[in-house]
């Protein structure tokens, strides 16, 4: 066990993957000498060489498209997209090529590409630096999407993503990069699955589902709720595509109430998918309609207003009050 920051844990995980497999290469903007704008790849070019840690020209579609070619050649590229809002030039290559090549070629061509995306808000950035674009990718067949919430998962799941023969989008909550935690570096990758959701706080009245940056917030909300006598079970999804519905379903069969929270906009988001799927699976067990506590359907706002947009502890508790039938901000209104 050692204590390390979230960012350092990703770095250590990539280092281990590169040591274990010479076909693992890193590609991205400023990831070499600088170590990335968030320093996540710090020291890797120095230790593994410029042929394995490639500073690329500033063209996201080309980074992704050349990663596809590298994968054809037998490499396992790990691509860094510098910020969430910069991924869109690569969207065509991700959706039309990375996601579809295995299907298109009837399994002949594998795309073991890991796409690392620092995502989410809360760091006071200008436009295009705080977005949560995960639903675009969870809606795309052929991709796997994960989001990590703590240093141990960051360390383990980056290696599982790299080892996966399918393409994986790996969403890193950038506002948590400096959070420290215990990391067991001797962990066996095969001992866990990156597709399993984890119950991170047990409870029996409300199931609170979230992922990535809001997991600590949700845990805090569960503690605050318990002060008011409400028992909240918190589930960290970890995998966003596919979602481990069995774990959520088991929890909801117990609690009868479901709250989903994410930073991404509400309409067409993951919360909608979870609410629909759980309603289909165990409608008869629900005491109340599922409630979503999410970012608004707006472009990511300027930083002085971002904490109105981002779900926080109090907004989550308000959602908990709604599913509990307690007095809440919408009491008396049909919404």
């Amino acid at each position, binding site marked *: 066990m050692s204590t390390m920051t979230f960012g350092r844990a990703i770095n250590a995980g990539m280092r281990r993957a590169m040591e274990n497999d010479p076909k693992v*290469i890193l590609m991205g903007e400023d990831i070499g000498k600088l170590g990335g704008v968030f320093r996540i790849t710090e020291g890797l070019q120095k230790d593994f060489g410029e*042929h394995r840690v*490639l500073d*690329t*020209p500033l*063209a996201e*579609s*080309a980074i*992704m*498209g*050349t*990663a*596809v*070619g*590298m*994968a*054809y*050649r*037998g*490499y396992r590229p790990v691509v860094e997209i510098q910020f969430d809002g910069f991924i869109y*030039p690569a969207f*065509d*290559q991700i959706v*039309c*090529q990375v996601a*579809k090549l*295995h*299907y*298109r*070629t*009837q*399994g*002949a*061509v*594998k795309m073991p590409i890991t796409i690392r995306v620092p995502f989410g808000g809360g760091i006071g950035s200008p436009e295009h630096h705080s977005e949560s674009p995960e639903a675009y990718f969870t809606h795309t*067949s*052929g991709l*796997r999407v994960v989001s990590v919430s703590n240093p141990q998962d960051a360390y383990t799941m980056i290696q599982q993503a790299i080892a*996966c*023969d*399918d393409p994986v989008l790996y969403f890193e909550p950038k506002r948590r990069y400096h959070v420290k935690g215990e990391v067991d570096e001797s962990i066996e990758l095969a001992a866990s699955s990156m*597709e399993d959701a984890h119950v991170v706080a047990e409870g029996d009245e409300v199931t609170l589902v979230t992922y990535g940056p809001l997991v600590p917030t949700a845990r805090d909300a569960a503690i605050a709720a318990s002060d008011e006598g409400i028992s909240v079970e918190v589930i960290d999804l970890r995998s966003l*595509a*596919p*979602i*481990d*519905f*069995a774990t959520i379903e088991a929890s909801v069969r117990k609690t009868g109430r479901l709250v989903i929270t994410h930073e991404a906009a509400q309409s067409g988001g993951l919360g909608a998918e979870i609410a629909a*799927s759980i309603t*289909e*699976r*165990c*409608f008869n067990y629900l005491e109340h309609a599922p409630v979503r506590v999410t970012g608004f359907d707006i472009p990511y706002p300027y930083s002085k207003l971002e904490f109105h947009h981002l779900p926080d502890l109090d907004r989550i508790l308000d959602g908990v009050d709604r599913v509990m039938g307690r007095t809440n901000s919408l009491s008396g209104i049909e919404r």
Partner: protein
Amino acid sequence: MIRWRVGALNEGCVIVPLNDTASAGENSLIQLLTPSGVRQSSGDYDRWVADVDGPALQALYEDMVVVRRIDAEATALQRQGELALWPPLLGQEAAQIGSGRALREDDFVFSSYRENAVAYCRGVDFTDILRVWRGNASSGWDPFSINMATPQVIIGAQTLHATGYAMGIQNDGADSVAVTYFGDGATSQGDVNEAMVFAASYQAPVIFFCQNNHWAISEPVGLQAHVPIANRAPGFGIPSVRVDGNDVLACLAVTREALDRARTGGGPSFIEAVTYRMGPHTTADDPTKYRDANELEDWAAKDPIARLSVLLDSLGLLTPDFLAAVNTKANDVAARLRAGCIEMPEPAPMDVFKHVYSTPNSWLDRQQENYGRYLASFDSEPVGSESQKSSGTATEGSL
């Protein structure tokens, strides 16, 4: 490495004057065989085809006749309802055979959807070419079986794949080359331009082979480019050449030169093969709505097969026996193509779920299982029977 590149720019590369237009005349082209079938010398390029003797010329002729026959047969199959669509290559045989025959087995091709003659050179099973167009598969073959990716439909996307593959070759210390084919329309795409940036930055062993066939569906090449397309590459630091795309010898020569440059550490090259799409964009297209019949006539006079037959005739190689043998082979290939098309096995309904992922996926597994039950329900007892009730939990699932 850099010295080589400068050398290429000074000696091997033809820079077309900027006042030329995108559809400039033949005087700026590398040409070894004139439209009237006269073998002419072209400076540095003769040496790249010095080994092409009579039998080799006959083989190139046979290739072009056979791929034209494949093209005609496939078009006929589409007209007869056996194919949903077909993109003809009529008129572009020399560009594809000349370049395709220059490649080594360990080179890797990333093409568009019209390079059926290149696939032929790579040794593809003819029937596999049709699988996509008959709707029986999303692509026709295992790319690693012939070292050629299956046709790319997103315009220009494959140029990046070739560049990345070439970067991988470089990392491996190998001397094979990635070759990407695309059209004049694709040169407007960001991906193609980005590919050239990356190829130049890393000096990747990749060849950009642009077939300027003058038409991107209904849009003339002048809409894509105000200068000859080959002129763009030097701006990226990539030596380029403009070649008569209907001259199979010249296409072979310039491709061999570019391959040699790539194999010896000289980095990427750009080839603009000036040719003409004699047919429609696809069988769903109607070129009479947008192009002048005179243009077609002008280009018919530059036909790649006709000019080679004149040369062969002048060498005494166009004998009745040779022509009969070529004809027999073309007919045989066409017959096999037709039979393979019609006898192609139908995909099974549940194949729709196959190969989305390489490892199990809980979302898809559930949908597959439910759809399997749905399909099976047509064969089982009426609704309400015991067997239906016992599987009742499925009603809570989503299809």
